[in-house]
């Protein structure tokens, strides 16, 4: 993409927009303004083409074929695992388990790790900020095991109350599961600090990184966590693929969760032995094209300087926050000091749904509702918000269009 002489230099983030075909389509006669990347990001040409090429030239089942196509597919598939490993700075690629998405990753840990290690009377710490995917799997295993869920409260800015978290720690706690970035409020949680606290009691920490991987560097070793999960579709990759990373010592100790092809070493009706990591946790034919295209998404992100992405999105967030605040009656939910490019808001005397419908008519896609964080909405005492979430392909024009749209919608509704 770069001329050879530039290939040490990273591409500029503000050039990214042209890479995404869908951003150049129209909706209801208007150029699309896509502000729902926190739900699912759009895909760059490189990722789409990767899938295309895979099915046109490389497709075959992996791992067991001796023929060239299968060798190629396997190589691409395992290369992708290697890319994931580097992307999150994991120690070994065998710690990288391909799953359907963050949700499946959390379920795998809750059921396999929890099934083996959780004890009745124990506690699981979650927070008021969590996505349903990081609540329900824990509720299910907690009920099965007779455990208690404890919830870290948040302050008025939408930040975790670290004192409260610290007070909850004890020998009884058997897991801390928190998101890295809140999808509803944008809060970036102090994961490193939390895992340092957890270490005092040897409590394993799972981080739901669904919102984090396309918005800043993730280094699982530096974060000091035990498990980290994320979804490909939220980081410019395809749907149906995600990653569970876990420390080798845990993954080794955990029993397999799903049984089937790929995850076995030998099978007989008398005795079945399981394969080594990572295959032990990858039963059945994996999402091969999805895994490979996730690698393409990582390559895509790698063209940019991660710090520049952070800086760019932070500026966009600042711009959007200032502009939105000018709208009469608009109130922003979530004003954490460390905040990702997500803005949740309400406008007095309007319903999020009405705003969403009218914005859509103007070609502007935002999310409305509870964002799969009902406990957070209950806590805030609202049924939902309008949420505009940005990625590296958004720009000030998108924000201007949003603000104009809101002004118009507000006029119509009030």
């Amino acid at each position, binding site marked *: 993409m770069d001329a050879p002489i530039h290939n040490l230099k990273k591409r500029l983030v503000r050039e990214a927009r042209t890479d995404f075909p869908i951003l150049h389509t129209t909706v*209801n006669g208007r150029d699309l303004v896509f502000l729902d990347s926190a739900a699912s990001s759009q895909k760059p040409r490189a990722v789409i083409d990767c899938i295309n090429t895979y099915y046109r030239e490389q497709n075959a089942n992996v791992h067991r074929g001796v023929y060239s196509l299968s060798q190629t597919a396997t190589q691409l598939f395992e290369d992708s695992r290697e890319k994931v490993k580097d992307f999150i700075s994991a120690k070994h690629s065998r710690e990288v388990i391909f799953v359907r998405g963050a949700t499946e990753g959390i379920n795998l840990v809750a059921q396999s790790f929890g099934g083996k290690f959780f004890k009745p009377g124990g506690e699981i710490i979650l927070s008021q900020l969590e996505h349903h995917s990081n609540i329900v799997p824990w509720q299910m295993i907690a009920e099965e095991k007779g455990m208690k869920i404890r919830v870290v409260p948040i302050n008025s800015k939408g930040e975790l109350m670290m004192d409260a978290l610290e007070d909850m720690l004890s020998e009884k706690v058997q897991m801390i599961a928190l998101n890295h970035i809140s999808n509803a409020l944008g809060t970036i949680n102090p994961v490193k600090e939390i895992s340092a606290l957890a270490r005092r009691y040897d409590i394993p920490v799972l981080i739901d990184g669904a919102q984090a991987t396309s918005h800043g560097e993730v280094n699982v070793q530096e974060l000091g966590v035990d498990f980290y999960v994320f979804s490909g579709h939220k980081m410019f990759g395809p749907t149906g693929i995600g990653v569970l990373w876990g420390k080798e010592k845990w993954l080794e100790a955990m029993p397999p969760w799903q049984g089937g092809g790929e995850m076995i070493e030998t099978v007989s009706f008398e005795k079945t032995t399981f394969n080594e990591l990572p295959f032990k946790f990858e039963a059945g034919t994996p999402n091969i094209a999805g895994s490979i295209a996730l690698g393409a998404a990582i390559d895509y992100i790698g063209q940019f300087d991660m710090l520049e992405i952070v800086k760019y999105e932070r500026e966009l967030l600042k711009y959007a926050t200032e502009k939105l605040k000018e709208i009469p009656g608009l109130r922003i939910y979530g004003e954490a000091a460390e905040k990702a490019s997500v803005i949740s808001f309400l406008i007095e005397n*309007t*319903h*999020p*749904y*009405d705003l969403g*419908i*009218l914005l859509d*008519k103007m070609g502007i896609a935002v999310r*409305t*509702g509870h964002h799969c964080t009902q406990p957070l909405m209950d806590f805030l005492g609202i*049924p*939902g918000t309008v949420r505009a979430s940005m990625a590296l392909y958004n720009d000030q024009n998108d924000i201007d269009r949003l603000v104009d749209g809101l002004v118009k919608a507000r006029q*119509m*509704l009030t």
Partner: protein
Amino acid sequence: MRCCLDERKDVIRRILVGTFKWSNKDKFMETIEQIQDEIIEDFSLFDDWMQKYEYIIELGKSLPLIEEEYKKDEFLIRGCQSRVWMRAERKGDRMFFKADSDAIITKGLIALLIKVLSGHTAQDIAQADLYFIDRIGLREHLSLTRSNGLASMVQQMKRSTTLVYSGKQEEN
């Protein structure tokens, strides 16, 4: 263009001054089809989404509200992003609906549904083919997504009718 504008204003005015027919209590002879056709005609006056939605919003604002006592979970329609409470009542051999929602566009849409269905017999309601939704360009609200509840509302109105008639819900 002037004429159109005037006509459009007239429609809005009809709503505002309360001549818009909320149900067919008085005018039993009009069929579900005829009412739908009238709505389609009304909507044909609008040539962009803004006018259409302004109309729906106005309709929403003028919807006869459901009594507070019925704004309970048991009257909530599942499958809507906005909350919708709906109450079906039988009077003689005819059904009447009241509803409310916290979202105004939803209210407007319900208003249209009520206008079409309220005051008809259970059989007519059960068999009604609500083609007007598509024809006035609101098909998007009929989609299967759980956030847009027009389909759920229609379903619920038909279901309540059946329930009321089978005696599973009290009569008024």
